């Protein structure tokens, strides 16, 4: 009987793994000429992983001072930054630095006001056409869920940000395109956003090397894409522990009930 239980478990495992294999295999389409992704270790990885908040806060600073010139994050609100560990006063101050078009008011007029915590992150362009026109025909993607929207999201992002190089001799580059080891096809419209040490000045004294800034902004964007992940993993650990105990009880009960049945 124990053997049949084991067998059923194996079947379950194999059936769960087999379909999982298919998309994983299908995923390997970083096309030819693209370097294999290096795999850094992130603080948020694993079932007990949590966000490195100091790093993610620095990452927000990188986003604000560098990325946000072109990339929107329209799904986030300033109030979400509270979950990143910023104080309410800080978040209010950050929100107040932007100007929001609101209205119509009682006279039917649109008006401008300073941003509030409840406002969404301000987008750098009025619409996609504007962002395309301003960026050599390539619209900078919204970054709200970017790590979920790319294969191996955070690893890809970190590699991409540090993957700029001179194009190999003989490679014909398109007009205004930049060479990147990890971008599919190696030609990316975005010029290297993180160029030199000290491009941003971290308040906590961390040395702002290109690698450090890339790591920080990756941590921030991972948090932005999956802000629920800490709560999710914590709940998952509880569920699995509870179910394991329940499974033991259920199996013992089943054994007891079936004890007198010759089969």
């Amino acid at each position: 009987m124990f053997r049949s239980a084991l067998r059923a478990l194996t079947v379950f495992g194999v059936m769960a793994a087999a379909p999982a294999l298919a998309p994983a295999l299908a995923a390997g389409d970083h096309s030819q000429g693209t370097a294999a992704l290096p795999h850094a270790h992130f603080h948020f990885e694993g079932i007990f992983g949590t966000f490195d908040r100091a790093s993610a806060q620095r990452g927000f600073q990188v986003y604000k001072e560098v990325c946000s010139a072109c990339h929107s994050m329209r799904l986030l609100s300033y109030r979400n930054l509270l979950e990143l560990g910023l104080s309410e006063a800080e978040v209010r101050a950050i929100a107040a630095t932007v100007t929001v078009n609101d209205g119509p008011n009682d006279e039917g007029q649109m008006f401008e006001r300073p941003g509030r915590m409840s406002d969404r992150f301000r987008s750098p362009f009025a619409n996609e056409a504007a962002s395309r026109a301003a960026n050599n025909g390539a619209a900078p993607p919204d970054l709200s869920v970017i790590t979920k929207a790319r294969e191996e999201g955070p690893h890809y992002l970190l590699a991409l940000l540090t993957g700029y190089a001179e194009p190999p001799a003989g490679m014909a580059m398109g007009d205004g395109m930049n060479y990147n080891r990890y971008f599919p096809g190696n030609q990316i419209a975005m010029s290297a956003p993180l160029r030199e040490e000290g491009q941003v000045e971290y308040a906590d004294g961390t040395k702002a090397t290109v690698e450090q800034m890339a790591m920080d902004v990756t941590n921030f964007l991972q948090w932005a894409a999956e802000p629920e992940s800490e709560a999710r993993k914590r709940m998952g650990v509880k569920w699995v522990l509870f179910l394991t105990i329940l499974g033991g009880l259920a199996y013992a009960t089943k054994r007891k009930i079936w004890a007198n049945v010759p089969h």
Partner: protein
Amino acid sequence: MSIGLHNSAFKNPVIRWVDSRLPIFSMMQNEYGTFPTPKNFNYFWNFGALAMINLMIMIATGIFLAMHYTPHVSMAFDSVERIMRDVNYGWLFRYVHANGASMFFIVVYIHIWRGMWYGSYKAPRELLWIIGVVIFLLMMATAFMGYVLPWGQMSFWGATVITNLFSAFPIVGDHIVTLLWGGFSVDNPTLNRFFSLHFLLPFVIFGVVFLHVAALHITGSNNPLGIDVKSPADTLPFHPYYTAKDSVGMVVYFIVFACLVFFAPNYLGDPANYIPANPMVTPTHIVPEWYFLPYYAILRAVPDKLGGVVLMFGSILVWFILPWLDTSPVRSMRFRPIAKWFLLLWGISFGVLMYCGGKPPEGIYVVLSRVATLYYFAWFLVILPVLGRLERPLPLPESIAKPVLRGGGPLPAGAMAKPMEKA
């Protein structure tokens, strides 16, 4: 007993009052309490109950998601992300619903495999099997339309590719496509009708599942030996024996489910679906969800569009006539020494098709898909009908209660005495 009232066996006056007028308590007692069930089920027989649980989870989470979702091309993607970020435990509901679809297909594929391996489709359970195939088709339609709702890139392009398949049919094809789209391309009317149908179909499935269970309770369950129940000694009451056994499988199922939802919620999904739908940009590879990959591989294995579409639909429609394609008098593969290897190979061909469906349609993958497609159909249309006549099955046990002596020879005196005394 007063005329017109059901003679209830229940003592509790309230239950008795209801039961005499509407014998739902008697029905539950008969169908799930004392229902005589073969005593030799293995854990493969958990999966029907698991599928039922899965359906209820999908409906429950779906109802709450529908309260927060907006079926409009300009708002659908954002409304899903709003569920993830701003709705209390919205992420939990959405991830349970999305991964629940995958779990549903895992469970149902095992359930179907169980039916094939132990010959559960054979007389007298042909109609039970056919109703099951209807449920599976409804499930596929529901899953496909559900995947369109988040309105990501794969939603949009998957919908475009799959709905376009119908245009392969001569004369009516283009009209069907226009009807599915509600216009001349996949657009807002498409999203609206898919949402409406995605809400409706699960309840249709629920109704057909009821018929599936009702038919099951007429013929009774098959069992791993594939032989008929001969006497009460072959059966056990469903409760507590199989409620207890199903509970074990249920917990294992929930553990697998929980690991997916909490630790790898996007593992089975495609990252491209987190990019908002854009009709102007085609993704490099358009792939359906993993559970549709085998049929997608069959579609692409055929160089002709209509031929591919016909074979793709045919790969499931052929299940409808399976009870009549199998000519063997024996149900369970345990007693079919040759057929079991061919069926295993069929299972492998299904796996190969699943693998190839996720790969670009070029080189070795096309060759593999074609070989696997050929075998997929050869098993049903050639091997199964012919083998049933040629194969010599192993001797069947006399009854479920006496399976130990293969061949069902006479038991040594006294072997049956002990259980008899106990009873």
